């Protein structure tokens, strides 16, 4: 019987059909998905902080409204994804606990500080750009609720990337000081953006099984290459330099050659030693604790309505 179920599962996956919540699935598949989707959700939620940092200091009402909408979208992305984990039997409150107790990770990119307003533009362009590269193939991931969440997310991401690029174009048309600010920001975010695709394939332990289950559709290195190829002409148009002396077009491969990020730094940040790790978690924990009375009040109100027969 178990073999039959497993066979049916594999056949569904091989046929590019979707696995749905009430289907039988291998334990490992369920666990891998919960871990991956939860980490993804946490990243969206923590990802609100670096840019949220600039909402009150945005230089115009227009930029403030855009930034608010973008940060609100990221909250939405987190919620779509938590919703997907619950279809696998995870508990949202438990995942929040795991995040604020540091037992589950989020993308290390959000542990870098946003020092200038140009960072808002560069995050939209490079960080959301890298996220799009990662997420577009996930629209075809084998687990239905995850794939559907990704489709919603991807639709919204293109606004994120375009507003960032437009912000940078505006700054590049400004003063020399503004152009320098953009270049400085690109210099700081380029390598961490490349790290968003994860360690090189040769060191990535989960890739093979995830590819077989069609959770993952491309390897880390494939996606990184795609991102570099997409970004180079955008940087040229913008008039900024990408800070990699090894970056150049390789006619034979039909791709750009490029240098490797500092993987020691990557692992340091993953382990919690990045510039902002502590601050990000402390902020999330405080928001959660400060919200406790609101959750309790809403619950008490709902209970009272039921008692009085209103609801």
């Amino acid at each position, binding site marked *: 019987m178990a073999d039959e179920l497993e066979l049916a599962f594999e056949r569904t996956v091989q046929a590019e059909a979707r696995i749905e919540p009430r*289907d039988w699935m291998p334990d490992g598949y369920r666990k891998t998905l919960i871990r991956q989707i939860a980490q993804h959700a946490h990243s969206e939620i923590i990802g609100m902080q670096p840019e949220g940092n600039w909402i009150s200091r945005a230089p115009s009402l227009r930029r403030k409204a855009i930034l608010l909408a973008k940060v609100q979208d990221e909250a939405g992305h987190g919620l779509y994804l938590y919703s997907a984990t*619950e279809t696998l039997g995870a508990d949202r409150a438990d995942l929040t*606990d795991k995040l604020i107790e540091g037992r589950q990770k989020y993308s290390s990119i959000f542990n870098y500080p946003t020092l200038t307003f140009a960072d808002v533009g560069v995050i939209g362009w490079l960080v959301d750009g890298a996220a799009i590269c990662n997420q577009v193939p996930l629209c075809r991931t084998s687990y239905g609720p995850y794939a*559907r969440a990704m489709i919603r997310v991807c639709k919204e991401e293109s606004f994120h990337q375009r507003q960032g690029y437009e912000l940078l174009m505006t700054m590049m048309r400004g003063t020399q000081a503004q152009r320098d600010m953009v270049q400085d920001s690109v210099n700081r975010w380029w390598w961490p953006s490349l790290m968003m695709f994860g360690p090189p394939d040769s060191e990535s332990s989960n890739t093979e099984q995830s590819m077989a289950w069609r959770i993952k559709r491309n390897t880390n290195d494939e996606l990184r290459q795609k991102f570099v190829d997409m970004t180079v002409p955008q940087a040229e148009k913008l008039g900024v330099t990408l800070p990699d002396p090894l970056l150049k077009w390789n006619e034979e491969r039909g791709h750009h050659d490029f240098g490797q990020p500092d993987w020691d730094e990557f692992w340091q940040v993953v382990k919690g030693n990045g510039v902002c790790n502590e601050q990000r978690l402390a902020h999330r924990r405080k928001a959660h604790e400060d919200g406790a009375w609101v959750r309790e009040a809403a619950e008490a*109100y*709902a209970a009272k309505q039921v008692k009085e027969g209103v609801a």
Partner: protein
Amino acid sequence: MSTSWPLWEVFVRGKRGLNHVHVGSLHAPDAEMALRNARDVYTRRNEGVSIWVVKADDITASSPDEKDPFFSPSGDKVYRHPTFYSIPEDVPHL
């Protein structure tokens, strides 16, 4: 920590003339709050003209394991489909 808010499934009618379609779920203390949250989470860009929220516990679903017997009543009724009937090609508008 207080976390006993129930889970609600959210259905959105994209525009007039379409059915409500399931879009995801959220937690809320009551139906009213579930609706408000659903608006903010699932319709930030005019994705809907109407929202339903239903407590997840109140949904009864068929399970895929029982798929064959459960859906078999319709499986052998091919005459429910228009392609069951052959009509000469020169009969218009049919």
